[in-house]
Structures are given as structure tokens and as C-alpha cells.
């Protein structure tokens, strides 16, 4: 599986309160959540994001609350993958559980600039920066987690088990 798109770059400690502010959590409507995604850190995000784009963050991406609304809003916005140096742990498991691709790679996070054209191979963890002609080795998922993603998220593994 691959992701292809342009980088949208942010810094360290992008927290769930800026990914989806709590004032919008009175709904769990996916489209509405997506329309406010990243609003408090980047108010034009909703306008500029194109399907396939890749968010590139720094350290501790997704820190803060456990709201699954955060990876849901990102996924629904059309983002194909989030690359970061490190992820906050609840965000990390939420992304896996809902089937949003994420990949840890400190070098990529350091080298990629806003707007760079990227291609990511999830099987190998290799991130290619087409704009700069560079590649970075990210950490691919262990088999257990790959199997959750392959099922299309955690709840689907339940269905698979039942069948």
C-alpha cells in the first residue's frame, strides 16, 4: 500500500485540542468534525487540503486527550498518512484502530518542508521526498498491528474472528 501527496507541515506537540477543538465535540458527525480539523493551528487547513495529502509533524504528535475525533477528522479530511518524529501514545493507537496510516520517522520530520511532494510505502516504511530527491527510512508496523490495519481497523478484526 502507498500514500502519495503533498506535505502539510507542523511543529512539535500538535495536540488534540488544536486538531479538533473541544467546542466541536458536541457532535460525532464525521463530516462536521472534518470541517473544523486543525482549525486552531491552521485556519485555512480545510480549504487547502487535497485528498491524499500527508501531514508531517514533529515530536509528540497528537498529545492530549483521547478523543478519537482527532484521527477521524484528519482521515475524513482526505489525509492519507501522518508522518512524525514521535506520536503521543493514545493518538497512535487510535489511528491504528480506525485505520489512519501513521509512520514514525524523525529524519523525515526534520527534512521535509511544507508543500514537498511525498510518496510513502507502508510495507517497507520508506518515505520518498520527490521534490528533494531524498528518501527516509521510517519504522514499519509490527505484524500484529499490520493485521489490524489489513482488516480495516480493530472492530473489523472482531467481525473476522466471528466469521
Amino acid at each position, binding site marked *: 500500500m502507498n500514500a502519495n501527496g503533498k506535505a502539510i507541515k507542523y511543529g512539535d506537540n500538535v495536540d488534540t485540542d488544536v486538531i479538533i477543538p473541544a467546542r466541536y465535540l*458536541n457532535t*460525532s458527525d464525521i463530516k462536521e468534525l472534518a470541517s473544523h480539523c486543525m482549525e486552531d493551528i491552521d485556519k485555512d487547513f480545510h480549504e487547502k487540503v487535497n485528498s491524499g495529502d500527508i501531514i508531517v509533524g514533529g515530536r509528540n504528535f497528537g498529545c*492530549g*486527550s*483521547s478523543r478519537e475525533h482527532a484521527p477521524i477528522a484528519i482521515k475524513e479530511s482526505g489525509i492519507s498518512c501522518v508522518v512524525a518524529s514521535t506520536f*503521543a501514545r493514545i493518538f497512535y493507537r487510535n489511528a491504528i484502530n480506525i485505520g489512519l496510516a501513521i509512520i514514525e520517522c524523525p529524519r523525515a520530520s526534520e527534512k521535509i518542508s511544507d508543500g514537498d511532494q511525498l510518496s510513502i510505502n507502508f510495507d517497507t516504511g520508506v518515505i520518498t521526498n520527490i521534490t528533494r530527491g531524498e528518501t527516509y527510512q521510517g519504522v514499519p508496523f*509490527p505484524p500484529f498491528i499490520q493485521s489490524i490495519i489489513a482488516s480495516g481497523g*480493530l*472492530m473489523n478484526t472482531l467481525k473476522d474472528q466471528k466469521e
Partner: protein
Amino acid sequence: MGMTMTQKILAAHAGLEKVAAGQLIQAKLDLVLGNDITAPVAIREFEKAGVEEVFDKERIALVMDHFTPNKDIKAAEQCKTVRNFARKHSITNFFDVGRVGVEHALLPEMGLVGPGELIIGADSHTCTYGALAAFSTGVGSTDMAFGMATGKCWFKVPTAIRFVLTGKLQKWVSGKDVILHIIGKTGVDGALYQSMEFTGAGLENLTMEDRLCMANMAIEAGAKNGIFEYDALTEKFAKEHGCKPWRVYKADEDAEYTKTYEINLGKIKPTVAFPHLPENAKTIDECGDVTIDQAVIGSCTNGRIEDLRVAAEVLKGRHVSENVRCIVIPATQKIMLEAMEEGLVNIFINAGCAVSTPTCGPCLGGHMGILAKGERAVATTNRNFVGRMGHTESEVYLASPAIAAASAVAGRLAHPDQL
């Protein structure tokens, strides 16, 4: 190699003799928690997957605390979804307005969480119950849905950082100052994917409120969980609160820690975390002149009775500055009653505070005290991210109840001794 407290609890719940850091396991859950924000998403996933029954109607807690009493129509719809689900599945521990409290204050109070248990909650501050020598951690709604269906959850076994506490806190210093001090040292990702394990002779000088507050903020250091070693106080609390039969897990002598911090409680000063990260810790004497518009005393971090007693001690016979709105929110109905019986509510109202029914309210910028552009609040809550309590250009300073109350009177960040 030996196991840490956390690793022992995980191993026991996974039916394994031994686990090692990095291992992926599936473990049995003693309790699954959700609230009015996270449970509706979990319920949608649960129903979408076609699951018909919950794994155990007594081991699920649904707490309507965030946007309640319903702040608007959408919030009302969310609560209704959860209420209907709770009725349909006869969930024993469903807490609605009138019985509800802020979840992480309510569950320990009700004896629903106890030593040695494994608890997940679709709320990041679920790590609070580590104060009771339990493993508890925040997860997302899908984990909650999976947990409600199967009674299980997947985990990566964490490494641990050990905090060896010695000494005794000084007057006006509390668990809040200790944990802000610690996060100031570790940074907001200093304990990422790890456990924070608290031990040492200083433990006996910490109250259960101090411990609950400290474990509550383990997530603000990025930790998976924070856990306190079981001692006489844990036992007393578990007995008094009628916890289910519990088990005690001690760390092995040769357990491995990635780091050990020695913390002398006697040296900790009142500490404030400046915007916009909990790691921006300064001692009160380093704060300078910071005027405030609002003070919030409450939340799952510091809305317990001991917190209110300290705030009342500062506010008694004094008046909140005319430039400050001071909002006091007891975390549960029981705490509200105690505060009334002890005369604390009178002290608050006479001092010019607004006292609210239990709710998360302003802590997450939900309702009951939202900040306008440019406004500043001192709050006993646990997060000061951009926009956390309102406008993205407002600011939150995290502090203890003593500092928040003193600041409400002074109109600026202040120590009670400065009044």
C-alpha cells in the same frame, strides 16, 4: 530480569507468567469507561460491528460529565445516545445528571476501581487510578467499543521511569506542585510510551488526593500510566470504598527502569505551568506579575474535598478580586454535599465565587466559564493547550487550589502568604 508494577499487572491480566517491554499482548479488563463525548463514537462502532451484547454489564461505566447538564441540543443528543444504550444493555454503572461527577473523581469514590485492576477508559486521564496501585490508561473510542464487546484490549508492554520520593511537603504545597515540577523536568513527552512508577519513603507523606492528582497528570508527561506502590493508605482507601477483592503487585527488586528520579518532596515549591504546555513550570516566586481574569477550582485533577478545603482556607474571610471571576466546581455530588456540610460552600459564596454542580465544564472549554480573546485564567485543571478554555488567544496557567484561590483574591498569580 524482573518486572515493574505495571508489567506484573499486565502479565496477570494476559494470563502470562512473564511479559517483557515491547511485547504486544491482549489482556482482560476489569472495567471499561466512557463519557458523553467518547461513548457515542464507541457505541456507533459497537453497533456498526453488529455486536449484540456487552461482555459484562457491571464492568462498564458510562459517565455523563463533560457537556452536562446538557449545554446545547447537540450535547443533549449525544447523552441521549448513551442513555439509550445504557438502558438497552442494563449497564449498572451509568451516571447521569444528579448522580454524576467528573469521572476520575467519581469512580474511585464509588469503589469501582481498585488495587491491581486493569482499567481502560476512553478518556486520557483514566491514568488517575494508578494512585490506587491499579494499571489504568486512556484509550480511544474504538478500544472502548472493542473492550465493551470482548472485555479485552491490546497493549504494548511499556518500559518504566521510577520516581523515588522522599521527605514531606511544606505548607501550601500539594501533589499538584509535585507533578507540575516533575513534568517541568521530564517535558510533555519525557515519559512517552512509558509507565511512571512512584515509590519511596516519601509516599507515606502523600494523601490519596495528592496521589490521585499526580497519577491524573501522568499523561501530561506522555506516559501510558502512572502508578503508586501499594501501601497502608491504599489498603485503607480500598477498604473504606468497598473495592472488589483486590490484589497487590509489587515491582521485583531487579525490575528495569529507563531512568530513576529522586524527588525530595520537602524541596518542592508551589509551581505554576505557564501557557501553552504543562511542561512550562515555574515556581511561584519566578512567576512575575501575571494578572488574571478568571480562576477555576475543580476538575478531575483538583476538584476533591481536600482541594476545596485548601481553597476555602485561603478564601475564608477574604474576597475575590473585582477583576476576577472565580468558579468553584466540586467534582462529585458527594463532594458537593461534604463541602456544604463543612461550610465550604458558604465560604466560597461569601468570597464572591460561583459554585457549580459537578461538570467538566470550563476545563476543556466546554461551557461554564469560557475565556474571551486575550483573557487569562489560573486553573487547577491539567491542560493549558492553545484554546483549551476558550479563545485561541486566551491563556491558562495551571496551579494548585491554594495558588488558584490566592490568585483569585490578589487578581494576579500569588501565593497565599502574599495576601
